[in-house]
């Protein structure tokens, strides 16, 4: 792909407004198509933005098709997958497709599930599958109608392919590029026919990604690569205690650093601006700052755990109740357990950054964000400028993982930029990135179950933890009556057939520690608790973990098939050496049905070596099978990094980790082969980006359980607990 394919939103034409699915000719004769999903309010907001084309598809006379992708690319392959969906229904020549970022606009590019422009929860394909197909099918029908009219034939006798309308009976064809003007006058059909699954030519094929060639030679532009004219460079330090403020600043030494141009002191942070990051960083290192640390100055990890453990012993809000738990728990053999998950940082490879240029009458921002419209609104609020005076250039994301669902780093950059003359690139050091994260919260899951006739008859799961939704989407939190629906995701829909069920949510906020979404979101915690507990229950009655699960998956045939395939491919049940075990995780999270078997070895010193990972996945119609495999491979590594190493701890209100030396992640020499088997399916596509992350920790934990008999109930893996006692 040519570099200009990612020219950014500013390069787009400003077309006329349309309603619902509409089309029109823009400057240069390009055909614009789009759909609208939102309220009058949202439409008004979009009309106010000069960079908001209501269009997903732009065609020009030369036959080039530009697809404007509403979801951001952070490695998950969405530019390619969503393009494949559009190109499939549009019947365009795949080789002529170009991709562009959508500009900020909830009205035009809002995610149909979230009602705002947001990339998260592994839902891009689920949310846009039908809307994009319908948009593209509409366009195709209009092009066909235009050709049929010119030929004076019935449109139903025409077909399409490779950006052409064909009329086989008369052996005539017309390129889409030659039909644009005519097609723009055709009334958009209400219910254009969609292709049958059997007719798909692109969907289901492992097509090459559109974004990767530029990522092999340094051309790809991430937010951190923005270089507007006259740029200065800055790095910042916020109060190391959450909520603390700047006390006194002595900048006498920092001002002596060659290349330092300016010291910016705000109420909660300091920043040094220089000719380059080196000057800024040296300046920051020599800045003498005292902080007013505030009320969280004495927070420790132990205090956080004391608080959440106490909260988790109380009754929570009932998120789901089925059958009669109180009666069921009295029957059969009872078991209790509690599982605990630590704080985690995101540690995206691209450290947090944002470039901003604030002028009296405008604000321009260069950033990679999972919530582009939120970022734009945040800039407008800080600067007091009207929304249309805030231009946000989206970029590729060097990892998102939920961290870039937040706008705190954009807000900080804009506040710094307000004090700087000209554009300034604010780049976090890795240490600041880790210590000013918005963390995956600590969770405690209290489980109770009873067993009879080889299966679970009663099940209680109380999730205790921070409510991210209460902060992130307050109206939804109110609507769900203070039950965090993400917090109980994969708990309320436990995949097993259990007659008596009670699922509770207990909110407990860690003092001062900001909490947010982290790859795998709620299911991360809940799949771990469910699948760990299931293994312990199986052992209690002496059943094989796979057999035990099979017996309760009769009503979940897709997951049962995945379990069977993973067991077969992993050689489940075949003999293994001492202190080597296999563990399984079965999950239905994100509307994908996945079974994962991990084989791991526990050393005498408690060290854990991954030997083999096998995964079977039914994610519905596989849009791009190669991307599905890649996402599972990568997601598993992400989850296993957390299981083996991930924990953020606090002392004196401060995060104690700061870089990859003390916040460790897996390296290539720790990662074995990861086999992924994609199960063919005609069901609607499921989500995939986060599923591996959810699968890794429970499968590993259960492998360690099988290898040693030690039931780990906290993450990350405690090696001291696993070490062989020598006495």
């Amino acid at each position, binding site marked *: 792909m040519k570099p200009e394919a990612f020219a950014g939103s500013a390069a787009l034409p400003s077309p006329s407004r349309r309603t619902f699915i509409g089309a029109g000719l823009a400057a240069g004769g390009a055909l614009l198509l789009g759909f609208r999903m939102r309220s009058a309010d949202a439409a008004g907001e979009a009309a106010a933005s000069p960079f908001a084309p209501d269009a997903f598809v732009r065609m020009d006379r030369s036959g080039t098709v530009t697809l404007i992708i509403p979801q951001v690319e*952070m*490695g*998950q*392959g969405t530019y390619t997958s969503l393009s494949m969906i559009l190109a499939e229904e549009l019947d365009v020549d795949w080789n002529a497709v170009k991709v562009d970022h959508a500009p900020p606009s909830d009205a035009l590019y809002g995610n149909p599930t979230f009602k705002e422009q947001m990339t998260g929860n592994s839902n891009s394909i689920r949310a846009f599958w039908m809307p994009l197909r319908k948009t593209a099918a509409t366009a195709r029908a209009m092009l066909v109608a235009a050709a049929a009219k010119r030929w004076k034939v019935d449109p139903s006798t025409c077909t399409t392919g490779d950006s052409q309308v064909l009329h086989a009976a008369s052996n005539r064809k017309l390129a889409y590029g030659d039909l644009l003007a005519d097609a723009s006058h055709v009334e958009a059909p209400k219910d254009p026919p969609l292709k049958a699954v059997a007719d798909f030519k692109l969907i289901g094929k*492992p097509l*090459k*990604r559109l*974004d*990767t*060639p530029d*990522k*092999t*030679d*340094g*051309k*790809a*532009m*991430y937010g*951190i*690569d923005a*270089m507007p004219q006259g740029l200065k*460079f800055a790095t910042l330090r916020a109060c190391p205690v959450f909520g603390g403020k700047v006390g006194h600043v002595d900048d006498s030494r920092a001002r002596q650093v060659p*290349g330092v141009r300016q010291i910016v002191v705000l109420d909660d942070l300091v920043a040094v601006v220089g*000719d*380059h*990051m*080196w000057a800024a*960083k040296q300046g920051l290192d020599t800045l003498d700052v005292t902080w007013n640390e505030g009320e969280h100055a004495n927070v420790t990890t132990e205090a956080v755990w004391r608080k959440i453990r106490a909260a988790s012993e109380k009754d929570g809000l009932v998120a789901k109740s089925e059958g009669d738990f109180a009666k069921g728990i009295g029957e059969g053999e009872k078991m209790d357990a509690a599982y605990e998950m630590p704080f985690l940082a995101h*540690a*995206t*490879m*691209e*450290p947090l950054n944002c470039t901003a240029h604030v002028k009296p009458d405008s604000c321009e921002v260069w950033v990679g964000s999972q919530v582009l419209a939120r970022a734009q609104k945040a800039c407008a609020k800080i600067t007091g400028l009207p929304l249309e005076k805030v231009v946000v250039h989206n970029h*590729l*994301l*060097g*990892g*998102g993982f939920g961290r870039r669902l937040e706008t705190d780093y954009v807000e900080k950059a804009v506040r710094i930029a307000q004090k700087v003359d000209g554009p300034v690139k604010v*780049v976090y050091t*890795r240490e600041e990135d880790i210590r000013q994260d918005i963390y995956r919260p600590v969770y405690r899951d209290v489980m109770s179950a009873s067993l009879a006739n080889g299966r679970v008859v009663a099940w209680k799961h109380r999730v205790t933890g921070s409510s991210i939704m209460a902060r992130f989407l307050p109206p939804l939190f109110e609507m769900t009556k203070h039950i965090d629906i993400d917090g109980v995701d994969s708990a309320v829909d436990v995949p097993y057939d259990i007659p008596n069920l009670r699922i509770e949510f207990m909110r407990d906020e860690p003092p001062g520690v900001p909490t947010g979404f982290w790859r795998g979101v709620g299911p991360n915690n809940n799949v771990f608790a469910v699948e760990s507990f299931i293994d312990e229950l199986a052992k209690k009655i002496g059943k094989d973990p796979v057999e035990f699960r099979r017996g309760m998956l009769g009503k979940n045939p897709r997951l049962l098939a995945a379990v069977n395939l993973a067991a077969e491919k992993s050689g489940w049940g075949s003999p293994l050496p001492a202190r080597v075990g296999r563990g399984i995780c079965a999950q239905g999270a994100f509307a994908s049905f996945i079974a994962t078997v991990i084989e791991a070895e526990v050393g005498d010193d408690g060290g854990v070596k991954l030997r083999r990972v096998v995964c079977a996945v039914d994610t519905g119609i596989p849009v791009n099978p*190669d991307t599905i495999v*890649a*996402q599972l*491979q*990568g*997601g*598993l*590594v*992400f989850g296993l990094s957390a299981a083996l190493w991930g924990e953020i701890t606090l002392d004196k209100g401060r995060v104690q980790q700061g*870089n*990859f*030396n003390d916040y460790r*992640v*897996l*390296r*290539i*020499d720790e*990662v074995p*082969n990861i086999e992924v088997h994609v199960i063919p399916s005609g069901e609607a596509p499921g989500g995939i980006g986060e599923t*591996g992350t959810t699968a890794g920790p429970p499968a590993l934990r259960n492998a360690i359980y099988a290898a040693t008999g030690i039931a780990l109930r906290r993450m990350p893996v405690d090696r001291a607990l696993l070490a062989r006692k020598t006495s």
Partner: protein
Amino acid sequence: MITLNVNDQGHDVDVPPDMPLLWVLRDVLAMTGTKFGCGIAQCGACTVHLDGTPVRSCLLPVGSIGARKITTIEGVGATPTGAKVQKAWLDLEVIQCGYCQSGQIMSAAALLATKPKPDDADIDAAMAGNICRCGTYVRIREAIKKAAEAA
């Protein structure tokens, strides 16, 4: 004034000699393909070649380089192993977010230049200094082998 040879082109830069090469490349020469990841040589995102040897540019003082040739991700495609690695990376669709991949490709190209047929242990030793948060390691291993076959 310091003179640098980057991808066979001379550049005169007016920067302090203790300034790491990474920031000279990115912020002074606007060659943004080389990435900042950790600043303490833990992640490998900033890897470049000095006379063909992989080094972490985030800790390399620009004044210590002298006449040695610097190769970056923007220029590695002109070397035989670099071109092979880039091709294998695309053939096997290694890349996800891509942010670490400049460094991964530089480390892999340097490995193949000294060891044309690396085994798993060679690959682990040469690549363990490069972190990928997207977890593309399985494909990195396969792609290095594929690039080696293309020799």
